[in-house]
């Protein structure tokens, strides 16, 4: 039941956005954060074959079936997280980056992230003055069950709340900021460990950027509809 083929026609020199019929799975093994259950991952493989040519391209992603919800609690004002409907007590670590000269490696990511799991943590917060972390970072968070809070590139110190006060309206080129944000979202969005996008560190991004990010990152209405069998 986990195999599905559809036929499409793509015009010459053309692009199409193809949405597949939803693939039904009965009682899939769910992905859970560290300390709540197993980090079950499925390999989702997409291949495209062209008539009279054969296989043209393929794409594979380890994918975790999970539902992450978070809202601000009216009593405490804190953010409450739920994973697959279960509330979770967040035990998190602060993350800036692997190495100041960006000598990034899978081995270092694996070691650092497994270390966080061994310390019984279940979330890593990527600080806005550092990087949008790399797919290898997220892969090991998927494997070891570390939820990720990923900030965009705004910090209070540099963007309007520092001393001296500077860049009150953030970076000079807002379109460039949003282009980088959208490309980063596409790069990272399929990782089950990605739990929360955050505008910046100790600062709200400029109004236009913040509204655009909230718009881009809302759950698409298509996924809020109840699908009847």
């Amino acid at each position, binding site marked *: 039941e986990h195999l599905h083929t559809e036929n499409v026609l793509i015009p010459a020199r053309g692009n199409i956005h193809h*949405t597949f019929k939803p693939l039904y799975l009965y009682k899939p093994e769910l992905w859970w954060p560290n300390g709540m259950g197993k980090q079950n991952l499925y390999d989702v493989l997409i291949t495209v074959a062209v008539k009279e040519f054969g296989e043209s391209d393929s794409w594979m992603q380890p994918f975790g079936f999970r539902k992450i919800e978070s809202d601000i609690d009216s009593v405490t004002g804190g953010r409450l997280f739920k994973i697959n409907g279960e509330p979770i007590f967040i035990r998190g670590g602060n993350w800036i980056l692997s190495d100041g000269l960006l*000598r990034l490696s899978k081995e270092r990511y694996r070691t650092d992230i497994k270390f966080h799991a061994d310390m019984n943590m279940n979330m890593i917060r990527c600080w806005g003055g550092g990087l949008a972390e790399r797919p290898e970072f997220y892969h090991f968070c998927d494997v070891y069950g570390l939820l990720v809070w990923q900030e965009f590139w705004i910090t209070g110190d540099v963007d309007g709340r520092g001393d001296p006060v500077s860049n009150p309206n953030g970076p*000079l080129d807002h379109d460039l900021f949003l282009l980088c944000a959208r490309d980063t979202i596409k790069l990272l969005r399929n990782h089950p460990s990605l739990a929360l996008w955050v505008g910046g560190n100790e600062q709200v991004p400029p109004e236009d950027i913040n509204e655009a990010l909230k718009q881009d990152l809302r759950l698409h209405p298509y996924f809020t509809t109840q699908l009847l069998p």
Partner: protein
Amino acid sequence: MAQIGKTLLDSGWLAARSTEVNDDGEKLTTTNPPSLGPKSPWMEAAVPGTVLGTLLKNKSIPDPFYGLENETITDIADSGRDYYTFWFSTQFHCKRLLNQYVHLNFRAINYSAEVYLNGHEIVLPKGMFRRHTLDVTDILRPDSDNLLAVIVHPPDHPGTIPPQGGQGGDHEIGKDVAAQYVEGWDWICPIRDRNTGIWDEVSISVTGPVRIIDPHLVSTFYDDYERAYLHVTAELENKSTWNAECSVNIQVTAELENGVCLV
């Protein structure tokens, strides 16, 4: 025959300071490719990596994270941006078949760059956190090595580190879309080149006429997680000049213990 799929370009890179290289990108990727040598400005490079990463690899600078060594490394504010504008160069072989297409991918470059491949120039726009995918099918050499050279420019506003230091230095870096810690913070000294470089993976991907771009996977759940749906959207691009009839396949495989797979 070029295998369909992605190949990393992560070895055999050379680098040189732009002010020490007289040739332009066209010559570097045609008549006068870079080479190492006692009088050559070229050195072995760490790609992915930054300019400082390459200089450190070649012991041209001390390790900035030992003692006060960072104080002995020239800051970009004092040297000017050209001092940390570097060439990175490599060669690769790729013999594609008819109706195969080849893309050159940079997953991240800080901060802007011009790419030269076999004498052809392609300008990469600014931004530290964006991917660049270039269709190089028509400029590849089928029977010999392809020569690639990339000149990488630092962020537009590298800023100046005040004598007293401080979180984010003079905050100029905040004018760009780049990592802000590089002007120094309470936990790290300023990074002298502001992390200029090809700091994430470079790859070549070979496809047939149709390629898959940025699929999006979403799972939804019903009946207390008994019933789940996997929603998949993907962009499909037809590079050919004829309509492409395709069949697209999704396969979801659970890897059980001991390497047994459930399809």
